[in-house]
């Protein structure tokens, strides 16, 4: 697979720190975009490439932590590396808990920053790969007819065709046809793979047995 050139976004209101990071990252050959405010970042045109955000914890009018939440809310799932001029333990704990990759205090060692960026970009690359796979699977799933989707949810429970036929009021033959259609459309090689696909799509198997009749 083609390796996309990653993009690193720096959001820091302090020009010294911002320019310094930009210079450093450019000197190691990374593509960098800098922003002086969260607003500028959100309004910008960003390349569709794996990357990560280097975010100052304290930003004008909002905190980096709040901005991180806003990012998640806006569907931007870039990994976040926090930087701060304060050595604030409580804040670093909160940041790490909310999924930050690294929390660096200014001035930082270049190697820790570069390492954090590497792991951030790698994480994002994986996430994007996963996203592509899932969206491909979703497309395949969408090509199923409503009936086939019903059968799909039952097939992955592992119950025999006869029972499924009984449950859906169809003939065993019809179930078999549906089943082969599903496997073909989903491009699965085995029932096990089908189950894995279902897992990734978040489709849950129907209850293996009808719920107990009430007494």
């Amino acid at each position: 697979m083609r390796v996309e050139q990653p993009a690193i976004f720096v959001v820091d209101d302090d020009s010294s720190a911002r320019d310094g990071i930009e210079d450093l990252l450019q000197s190691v050959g990374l593509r960098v975009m800098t922003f002086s405010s969260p607003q500028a970042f959100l309004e910008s045109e960003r390349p569709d490439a794996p990357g990560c955000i280097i975010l100052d914890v304290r930003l004008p009018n909002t905190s980096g932590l709040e901005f991180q939440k806003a990012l998640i809310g806006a569907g931007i799932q870039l990994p976040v590396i926090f930087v701060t001029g304060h050595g604030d333990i409580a804040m670093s704990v909160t940041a790490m808990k909310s999924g930050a990759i690294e929390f660096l205090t200014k001035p930082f060692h270049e190697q820790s920053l570069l390492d954090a960026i590497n792991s951030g970009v790698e994480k994002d690359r994986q996430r994007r790969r996963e996203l592509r796979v899932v969206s491909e699977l979703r497309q395949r799933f969408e090509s199923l007819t409503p009936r086939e989707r019903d059968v799909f949810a039952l097939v992955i429970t592992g119950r025999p065709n006869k029972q499924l036929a009984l449950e859906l009021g169809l003939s065993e033959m019809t179930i078999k046809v549906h089943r082969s259609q599903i496997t073909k459309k989903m491009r699965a090689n085995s029932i096990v793979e089908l189950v894995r696909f279902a897992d990734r799509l978040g489709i849950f198997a129907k209850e293996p047995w009808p719920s107990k009749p009430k007494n």
Partner: protein
Amino acid sequence: MIKELRSWAWFPFAVRALGAATLLIFSYIGVSLGFDFDDGRFWLLAAVVIASLLGDYVTSIGLSLVAAGCLAFFFAPPKFSLWVEQEEDILALIVFLATSMVVTSLAVKSRRTSEEELLQTRADLARFGRVAMLGELTASVAHELNQPLAGLVSSSNACRRWLLNQPPNIDRASRSLDRIIRDADRATMVVERVQSMAKNRPPQKIAVNVREALREVVLITRAEVERHQITLDFKVVDDVILVWADRVQFQQVCLNLIVNGIEALKNVVSNRRTLVVGAERDAHSHITVTVADTGAGIDPKTLGEIFNAFFTSKPDGMGMGLAISRSIVEAHGGRLWASANVPQGAKFQFTMPIYRG
């Protein structure tokens, strides 16, 4: 500083002791010359001398009047005529005048010295307050230093990489160096700003640009403001107002009020943590500086006491900040007062005379 305070406190007593000794010596001379002090002259004289040494301005003026009356009553006609042959009375008059002169000059000297000492103490106290406040702002100052340092370290690393490239990228390396110099200058400025607040030098009044001076104070406290997620509203529209003040002390008062404001907002749960820092000229050739917060406000019961020394509402406060600030403002011919901020919080304002070139 405690040592200085003590020597200041003892000095007037020495002068007073000297005055009392002079008085005793003159009365001894008087007695040995055979004066009769029973007519009350001696006792009046003694009372006047002692009171003028111990008293303040009002007492001294009052007593000078008494002394003048005494002189008129005992030495001038019609009761006593100096040209009547009363040698004793002429001697007594001389003793009276000599004693008065010595005592008065000593009293003036003592008062002048203690005033100088008081000014010095006030300056020391002001500096002490500044240093204490800077101590509270350590985190903020560190943050202000860490920003340019972060840039400096990153740019240095970048510069080395540009140079190690094959071939070396001289253009980029020199751009990194420009940034390094810029950041180093910035760090130096932060250090200078802090140093000027901590430096021990006599107060000196100059024309101070209000907007600039306030801007610097806001910069020193910026990290604290951001840390507590406070919105700081800087409302100084006029950028050429000058006040006639000691720059450092002017900044100290502003710094004190802003730090108090931050303290007041620190524990406010609401999302609206706002600190307004403003300055505007009024009709009386003064400038009014306002620092208003949306904190819990001042308890009306303690409104009268907040400017007293050692009054504090903070668990670890010393209660010197506002007392020092008020004494600084008053020494500049201004006023410092507090009121309730509408709709909530506290508002501190002070005036200072505008400088007219």
